[in-house]
């Protein structure tokens, strides 16, 4: 028996977008071993989906050779498709059919004999925990349940090779763990081979092997441990008594010999260029009392180090200029008993919290937790069904237009005018906020320079790489120097480098006194927030400093829980209480 389930050799694929040719994959050669779980990892636009679609025979490669289970995909696409299971990013569930009807449909489509169905259904329902919801419409399931149903439909006829394209995007941490255990049970029991793509770097550590893609090129294929091995002895956690981690991080970003600096709770995690314990006098001349502890490297450190090697060193944190009225620490956003109903459904169930000036405040939760609904109510885009809210003393929904002028807003998915150029977008948004003449020209120049958008000024916003879209959306929100920033999922889909850059900017703004309200479904980003609330099903599960929230989840087995551990502990605690 051949022990390679999938192999690609010198595969190249280009697409035409308008008049520009985009290379999605450039000479990629990988092998996926039979019976393994291989992770396909890379930022958005790395070519993950293209690779999946090529392997499933849904696209034809421009050059190179792809073999699946010993068959040439180019020659026998139908035979390949009947032997594999492929779950695309948006799996085609029929939302108006029930869970059971969806399963029946896919069993019919894949020609599963009727005699085998009852047994297989029972197995899948048990595995996914969907058994009690057989009659519920698929459209009424939560995001995590939908993904599990999609996976069950893909597995209804056990395939030999399973291709999963970002199965865990937007899924809450509990459902993510369940999806992973389903995947592993299939590999162990049925001897299935799984190729799974993901943008969550922490998931890489759960794979037997990892394929790392970046901008269509293969950066490596190794075990997760082998990826982080070169970083042994290069990762440390630092702490300066009495200094906020954010300010320490800003200092360390500029320190010599530091490749990466990341806030981790009340400490800062750094990756150095060389494997020696850094000298405090050199690292932070102003703070010789800094405490430096070596820590084991993780996959994200390795990933960032590789990309930095690849793309060159990171730039300086940007200059910000804001005029903030009022004192730091003053209450800026107040939410009391806020409620929102859609028909019978209570999306937000009477939540309360306050945000002080100069804080970075996080709204964390999975898709459907109610954070976007809360966010839209705060921005005045959605009327509240009950309760009070005030942003800088106003309800933005009823406030005069001028009150909105002190707020900057960055919409989900970096909404910009796709067929306007970068410059036209910036010009429009600055005009909409009343900037004109010399002041406008100055701010335009500031945006182009600070966000390094100069090379793209005449490119349509829709054609920008995602990381640049994020920069442009952020720049557009900052044109009028707002005192309060609303940032809705500002880091979703962008690679770790762009995420670091984004947080460096936000930190600098917060240092200057700007208040930022951020939603995110990346649990680890909670560490950047001064305070946060964790939401689930329209309720606030916890509020406080990220460090305190994590400390609540501390157990004898897990003395240093991650934010994800804390989240899962909170959700499970709530379920037990119910």
């Amino acid at each position, binding site marked *: 028996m051949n022990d390679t389930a999938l192999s690609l050799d010198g595969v190249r694929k280009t697409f035409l977008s308008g008049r520009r040719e985009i290379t999605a994959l450039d000479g990629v050669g990988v092998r996926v071993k039979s019976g393994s779980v291989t992770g396909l990892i890379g930022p958005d636009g790395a070519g993950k989906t293209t690779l999946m679609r090529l392997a499933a025979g849904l696209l034809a490669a421009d050059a190179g050779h792809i073999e699946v289970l010993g068959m040439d995909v180019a020659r026998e696409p139908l035979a390949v498709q009947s032997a594999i299971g492929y779950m695309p990013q948006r799996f085609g569930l029929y939302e108006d059919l029930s869970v059971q009807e969806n399963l029946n449909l896919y069993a019919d489509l894949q020609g599963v004999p009727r005699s085998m169905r009852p047994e297989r259904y029972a197995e899948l329902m048990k595995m996914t925990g969907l058994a009690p919801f057989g009659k519920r419409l698929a459209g009424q399931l939560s995001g995590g349940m939908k993904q599990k149903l999609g996976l069950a439909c893909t597995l209804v006829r056990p395939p030999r090779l399973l291709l999963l394209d970002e199965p865990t995007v937007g899924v809450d941490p509990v459902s993510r763990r369940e999806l992973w255990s389903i995947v592993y049970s299939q590999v162990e029991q049925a001897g299935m081979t799984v190729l799974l793509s993901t943008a969550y770097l922490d998931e890489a550590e759960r794979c037997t092997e990892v394929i790392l893609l970046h901008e269509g090129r293969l950066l490596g294929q190794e075990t997760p441990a082998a990826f982080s091995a070169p970083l042994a002895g290069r990762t440390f956690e630092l702490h300066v008594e009495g200094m906020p981690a954010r300010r320490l991080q800003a200092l360390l970003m500029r320190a010599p010999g530091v490749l990466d600096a990341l806030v981790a709770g009340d400490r800062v995690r750094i990756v150095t260029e060389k494997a020696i314990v850094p000298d405090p006098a050199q690292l932070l001349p102003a703070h010789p009392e800094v405490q430096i502890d070596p820590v084991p490297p993780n996959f994200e450190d390795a990933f960032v180090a590789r990309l930095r090697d690849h793309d060159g060193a990171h730039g300086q944190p940007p200059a910000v200029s804001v005029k903030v009225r009022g004192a730091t620490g003053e209450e800026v956003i107040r939410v009391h008993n806020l409620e929102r109903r859609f028909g019978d459904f209570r999306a937000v169930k009477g939540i309360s919290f306050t945000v002080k000036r100069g804080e970075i405040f996080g709204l964390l939760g999975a898709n459907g937790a109610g954070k976007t609904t809360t966010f839209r109510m705060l921005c005045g885009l959605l009327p509240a069904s009950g309760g009070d809210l005030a942003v800088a003393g106003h309800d933005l929904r009823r406030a005069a*237009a001028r009150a*909105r002028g002190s707020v900057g807003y960055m919409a989900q998915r970096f*909404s910009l*005018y796709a067929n306007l150029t970068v410059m*036209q977008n910036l010009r429009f948004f600055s*005009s*909409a906020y009343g900037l004109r003449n010399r002041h406008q020209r100055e701010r335009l120049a500031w945006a182009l320079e600070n966000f390094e958008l100069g090379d793209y000024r005449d490119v349509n916003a829709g054609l920008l790489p995602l990381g640049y879209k994020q920069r442009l959306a952020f720049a557009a929100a900052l044109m009028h120097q707002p005192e309060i920033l609303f940032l809705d999922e500002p880091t979703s889909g962008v690679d770790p480098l762009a995420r670091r850059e984004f947080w460096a900017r936000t930190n600098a703004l917060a240092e200057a006194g700007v208040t930022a309200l951020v939603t995110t479904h990346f649990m680890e980003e909670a560490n950047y927030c001064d305070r946060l609330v964790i939401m689930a099903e329209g309720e606030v599960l916890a509020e406080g400093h990220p460090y305190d929230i994590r400390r609540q989840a501390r157990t004898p087995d897990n003395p240093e829980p991650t934010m994800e551990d804390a989240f899962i502990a909170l959700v499970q605690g709530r379920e037990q209480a119910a």
Partner: protein
Amino acid sequence: MPWHILALAIKEFLALLRDPRSRLVLIGPPIAQLIVFGYAASFDLNHVTVAIYNEDTGGASRELIARVAGSPHFEVVAQLTREAGITPLIDNKRVLLVLHLGPRFSANLRLGKPASVQAILDGRNSNTAMLGLNYLRDILLVFNRDWAARQGRRGPPAVLQMRAWYNADLNSHWFIIPGIVGLLTLVVTLVVTALSVAREREQGTFDQLLVTPLRPVEILIGKALPGVVIGTFEATFIIVLAVLWFDIPLRGDIGALYTGLLLFLLSAVGIGLMISSIAVTQQQAVLGAFLFLVPAVILSGFATPIANMPEAVQWLTYLDPLRYFLIIVRGVFLEGDGFGLLIHQYWPMAIIGMVSLAAAGWLFRHRMY
């Protein structure tokens, strides 16, 4: 105008003109509709296919047949010798009309007795059949008069003398093409504005727009302006072609025409924006626009007279801005109307425009989930 509204209007123009598909919407329909309506759509019937079944051998029958064959309206495609030949010709739609002259036609005429002419028509399309029959009646009328004059008899006691005012030749292009000005301007303006808010909603930029200090009224003006400007351009393009290419006389006051056009565009833009703020996706917006367009065109009197509609439906036509504008555009083109005569067409459009714009502005903020 305040600077930020102008910025919004400029942005709307850029978004429209930089998108190849939107550009096509602006250029494609005017050309296609002008060709379709300018050349293909006509109420006049030419080249009616005719078969002749003549059992008579006299000169009178030959003369009558020569008159039919010589008419521009008719085209003789078959000569029959047996009655059985009629059925297949009509059944297979080879002819619309069969002209049958009995064996005693000429003899009866000479004797001064009534001589009958039989016309067998394909009644499946009643309108065409009636038109063909009317042309045949005209020919027969002239034939009778000439025959009587030659025989020295008195002609028929009363004779119809016809003069058509405003359109002496009763050329149906003169009726249809000014109508296209209204029809086409409505289509383009409605589609352009219906897409404008829906496109932003679909791309998620509408939220971004609502959180700026722009007030709903200002957004409304910024979004309405491009529709009005584009509509004015489209209408001017067709008016110029109507006069220079199709030779339609423009007899009235241009100022009166453009006043009507502006009010008409205001109502079209209002309805377009209203549809757009209800729709969540561009697809819904286009569908909504056509849901309005089809009844609006039928109820406007563009092709079928409003006076022929049932009374309840006639009341409904008062809600249709195209109804008023068609009266204005046809009035100015053919009748030479000025402001005074058209005032009662202006104010209903102004009301429709105001109400629909106000509704659209309200929907901006209230229809968002």
